[in-house]
Every structure is written in C-alpha cells, then in structure tokens.
C-alpha cells in the first residue's frame, strides 16, 4: 500500500485494474487506491504479470502492507497462485511510518515466499526472494556487478535471506570494501581529510550513485518518503545557529572508552540528550495544525542513517537523557543493523523528538540539515579537526574543534533558546565529557 500522503496511515483499494494473470507493462496502472476524498492510480514500475491479489477491492490496508504480487514471467504465476492463498502470511511488509517519519521499503520476502514475486507495495517494487534459485541482490550490488563484470549467480549473499550486497560483489573481485555504506557516526568524529579515496583509479566510482551516466532512475519508496518530508519542511520557518565546540577532551575520552564498545554516536546522542533535558523548549515542536507548542514526555534523539539503496532513516535512541551510555551504544548497534535489513518497527524510527545528523566521519567541516517534520530542531555535526585556537589572553594553542549547526523551527524555538542550548552543549563537551559515562 503506497503512501499517498505523509498523514496517510491506511488506504482503501477501490479497484484492481488488472486481474491475476494479466500482463502488466511498466508504468501501467494496476490498481486504484482511495484515501480520504482522493483517488490515485497506482502503477507498476516493472514489467511483469500480476500473480496474486492479497487484498481484494473494497479492502483497507495499512501503508506499507503488501497488497499484491507481481512476477517477471508467466511461468511463475501458477507457482505463486498455488502457494499464495495457502499462506496468508506471505510477505506481509511491516506497516510503515504513520505520520511524519519516513516509511521503510517493504523488506525482501521471507525465504519461504512462494516465488520470485515482487510485492506491489508502493510505486516501487521490492526485490524478490530466492526460493527458486534466482538471484536476489541489492540494487547497488547489481549495478556494481554489471560494472565489474561479476556473475551474481556465483555469489553467496551475506545480506538478509541471502541477499547479495554490494560488499559481496566487491569481495568477489578482491576489491577492498570501501566507504561504510551506513553513514552514521559510529566512527570517530575525527577523520583525516585525506581519506576521501581519490587515490588509485578504481574501476568502480568512489562515491555512491544510484544510476549510471545517461540513466534516469525512479526514486524508491524510501527516497520518495524522504522527499515528501523534505518538501513539508518548506512550510516551516527555519533558522540556523552555528557553534564551534572544542573537542580535545571529548576526543581523548572517546579514545579511552572506545575499547569498551562506546561509539561517538552514543556519546554525542547522550550529550545532546542530557542538554535537551535542561532545555525543553529545544525538544518541543509545533503541533501539526500549527496552533500549539507540543512538549514531548521524553527526550528521544533520532540519528539520521543513510541507506545503502537510497533514502535515509532516523532510528531513535529513546530517553537519551536517562539511558546508560553503554546500553545506548548497544541499542544503537542493534538499531543500525536492523535498519540495514529494513526490520525496524515504526516506533523505532518515528518517535524522535530531536534529530542528530553527523557527517564528521567524512571530514566535512560544516553543513546544515533540513528539519524533519514533527520536530523542532536538528543538529548537524561536522568533523572534529585540529585547529589553531587563539585564547583571550593572546595565547595560541592547537586544539580539536568541530562545528555544529542547529536548524530550528522559529515558531517554537527562538534564537536565544537555540544559542543557550548550544552554549550548554559546548560547555558539557568541552569541560566534562566524562560525566556522560555516569
């Protein structure tokens, strides 16, 4: 069930324009979905055959639910038809985000799924599973394989349900596995600027791309959801405040605790959480109808994570002000792993009250972030780098510094409140990072 609106939680199937067994052309309308007083024709982005209708016309399904299956060849229709009715649990995608957050694409069908069917879930079709020995690979893996001349059939996938990941293709060619695909701050905030691999001419491009030169590639479900959320932010009067934070102490502390499994993301989220608890105005958001300031009951720090096949998701560290930092680091590792395999529950990525976006591990010296809908502020964290710092007394020293940039909804958060929050955050990180571990 595609999301036709950020406020759509379920949709009614008005009509299946195709019947099981019908051929479906790319771009052809397959069904009509109604939500409120709006109808939308839902089209297939792949050519194939409608093999099964899992939710008949007149039925209502939550956004993200698999409502039908499209297969590539006529031969597979019977296979699906034989098994689909007997297995009502066939590939039920978890219901995606209700409101403002980004829905996840439906996960690949479980290994027991009947055939290499693609789920008609959203205007994009999820990759299939492998029961009949067919190749299941991530879009990036497919792209890499074609660029590098790797035969996917010969590979064993390390992803969920044996899905072939980009890393598997790289490994097959003996290529070193490059940039971490999940761009979150589990690495040190400090990154040498020279690590941006412009080194030896590699056969594969160094940066991520979702298409090849000359191609036009449709946004996937998650990318579309992010796009809608970004558009929504255009209706919010935002302003930005920057601050330079000296991180010499934080970096030293991180070095000590890293062997104990602490990550920079956990440290930053904890620091932000603790300071937010003292600055409830910065944790607040303008209500959906714009008439009130909503003060959440808890401090939930969401952290933006880029997805390998496009789009991003914001797993949430709930109660970041109160949770023990070691527990938080473990939670975070688990959230990221499940975000990668698209197994997060909506409440795990839609309940953030404040968002953290960290590009420090790439050596970025400054950036600003777009405010996610339903929240009041997002903090963009850049790299910590050695800098020559002049003291008030005229002294000169070298210290690590990072720039942070807070984007706020001015209806709820004013400049003075944003500045006071940043000042306190800087004070905590600069003078007492050890306190985060207690």
């Amino acid at each position, binding site marked *: 069930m595609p999301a036709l609106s950020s406020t759509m939680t379920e949709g009614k199937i008005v*009509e299946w324009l195709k019947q099981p067994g019908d051929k479906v052309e790319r771009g052809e309308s397959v069904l009509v979905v109604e939500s409120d007083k709006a109808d939308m024709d839902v089209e297939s982005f792949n050519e194939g055959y409608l093999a099964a209708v899992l939710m008949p016309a007149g039925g209502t399904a939550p956004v993200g639910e698999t409502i039908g299956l499209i297969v590539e060849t006529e031969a597979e229709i019977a296979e699906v038809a034989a098994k689909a009715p007997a297995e009502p649990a066939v590939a039920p995608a978890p219901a995606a985000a209700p409101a403002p957050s980004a829905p996840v694409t439906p996960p690949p069908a479980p290994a027991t799924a009947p055939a290499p069917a693609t789920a008609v879930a959203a205007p994009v079709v999820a990759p299939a599973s492998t029961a009949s020995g067919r190749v299941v690979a991530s879009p990036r893996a497919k792209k890499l394989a074609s660029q590098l001349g790797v035969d996917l059939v010969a590979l064993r996938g390390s992803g969920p349900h044996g899905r072939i990941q980009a890393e598997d293709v790289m490994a097959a060619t003996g290529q070193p596995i490059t940039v971490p695909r999940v761009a979150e701050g589990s690495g040190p905030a400090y990154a040498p600027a020279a690590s941006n691999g412009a080194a030896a001419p590699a056969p594969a491009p160094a940066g991520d791309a979702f298409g090849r030169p000359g191609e036009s590639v449709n946004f996937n479900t998650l990318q579309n959801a992010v796009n809608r959320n970004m558009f929504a932010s255009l209706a919010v009067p935002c302003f930005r405040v920057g601050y330079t934070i000296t991180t010499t102490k934080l970096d030293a502390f991180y070095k000590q605790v890293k062997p104990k499994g602490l990550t920079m993301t956990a440290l930053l989220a904890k620091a932000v959480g603790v300071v937010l608890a003292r600055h409830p105005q910065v944790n607040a958001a303008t209500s959906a109808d714009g008439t009130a300031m909503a003060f959440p009951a808890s401090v939930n720090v969401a952290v933006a994570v880029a997805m390998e096949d496009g789009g991003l998701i914001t797993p949430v560290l709930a109660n970041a002000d109160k949770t023990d930092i070691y527990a938080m680091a473990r939670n975070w590792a688990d959230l990221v792993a499940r975000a990668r395999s698209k197994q997060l529950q909506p409440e795990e990525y839609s309940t953030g009250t404040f968002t953290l976006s960290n590009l420090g591990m790439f050596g970025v010296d400054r950036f600003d972030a777009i405010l996610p809908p339903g929240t009041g502020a997002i903090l963009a964290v850049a790299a910590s780098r050695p800098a020559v710092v002049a003291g008030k007394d005229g002294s000169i020293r070298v210290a690590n510094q990072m720039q942070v940039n807070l984007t706020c909804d001015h209806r709820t958060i004013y400049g003075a409140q944003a500045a006071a929050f940043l000042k306190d955050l800087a004070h905590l990180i600069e003078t007492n990072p050890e306190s985060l571990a207690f």
Partner: protein
Amino acid sequence: MISPNLDAILFEATVPVPFERAWAVQRQLQQRLLDYPEGPDTVVLLEHEPCYTLGRGASEAFLRFDPAAPPLPLHRIDRGGEVTHHAPGQLVLYPVLNLQRHGADLHLYLRQLEQVVIDVMAGLELQGERIDGLTGVWLEGRKLAAIGVGARRWISQHGLALNVDCDLAGFAAVVPCGLRDRPVGRLVDWRPQLNAQQLRQPLLDAFASRFGLVLRPSNPQDGVFKL
C-alpha cells in the same frame, strides 16, 4: 515560504458546460502533463449543466432514485468520494496540477483546496470551517463546498465545487457525499447580493495565491481544448 509563482494556464467557460465535455478536457489536460510533467499546470473554471456524479468507489445507496433512470444525467467518474450534484450557480474548479510541484501529498492537496474556499469566504467576511474527517468547507453546519480529486502519477484532476447561488433542489434527490443529516448550503443565503459571476475572479485569485501560480489565458501553442 517563498511562493514559486509557476506559470499556469487558465481555461474558463462562460456558459454552463455538460459534464462529459469538461471531463474529456480534463483528461486531455491530464494526459498532456503525464506526457510532459515539466509543462505548466492548468486549471479549468466553469459551471456545469445540472447532473450527478459518483466517485469511483461511491455507493448507489446514497441515490434516492433508480440509477437506471436518473432524473438528471448521472456519471460515475474517476475521483474519490461519494455522490454529488452540479448545477449552474455552483463554481467548479478543476486544477490539473503536477502535484510533485505542490508537495506530492494527496491529503495536503485536499487541505489546500479547502483553504482556497476558506480564503474566498474570508473575503466575504464569512468564516468557512473544516470538519475533521469530512473533507469540504462548511458554514454554520451547512456544506458549501464539495471536494473530490483523482490523480495518476501525481497529476491531478477533478477538484472543488462551491455553491454560490445555485438551485439546491437537486441535492434533495441524493445524500450528498454520503452524509445524512448534514445539509448543503450556498453563499447567497448569507450574502444575498452575491452571484457566481462575481465570485469567479476571487476564487481564481485565492487558488493562484495558495498554489503559488500565475494564471494566464491559454494561447494557441498550448493546444486547443474546447470547453
């Protein structure tokens, strides 16, 4: 928010139009944007000859007549929502927009259409209201504007119908929008001097302003869409 002021083409009919003709034009305009999504948005403003229309999923239980022998032409069309009635004196606005340029969010789009009507009513010093869960615009418990849209690849058709000085008798033969006990109303009952002709420009202005469009009449390069 900075208004993008997109170029948009206005098609306006000065005499009441049969429903089929207006629907055919909308489909042509929709196809044109499907073929060329970067092209300008279009909007059709007209009044209809008396008729009834049903949304694609609409129930015939809300008709108080035999659908095989309707008192006025009856059309089942590709929009959301239940039955409604059109008649001269009701201003009908059919925006054919690439909604990707307007937020790509169907609920937001419905709310924006409601806001256009609320803006028009504010100009008459009337306070139009939304009722949660009942798309449309209301005044003192009466429904003045009905809204229903359809879209393909985010290209919209259908839109809103605002009762200005139309005869409301035709609504008696149906349960408008499937809502029993919710009477329909018309602006002239609050502003007796008003007629539909006077309200055309305010409606277009409110629409253009809400959607950040600059409306211009069609020119020969835009093709001929005979209303």
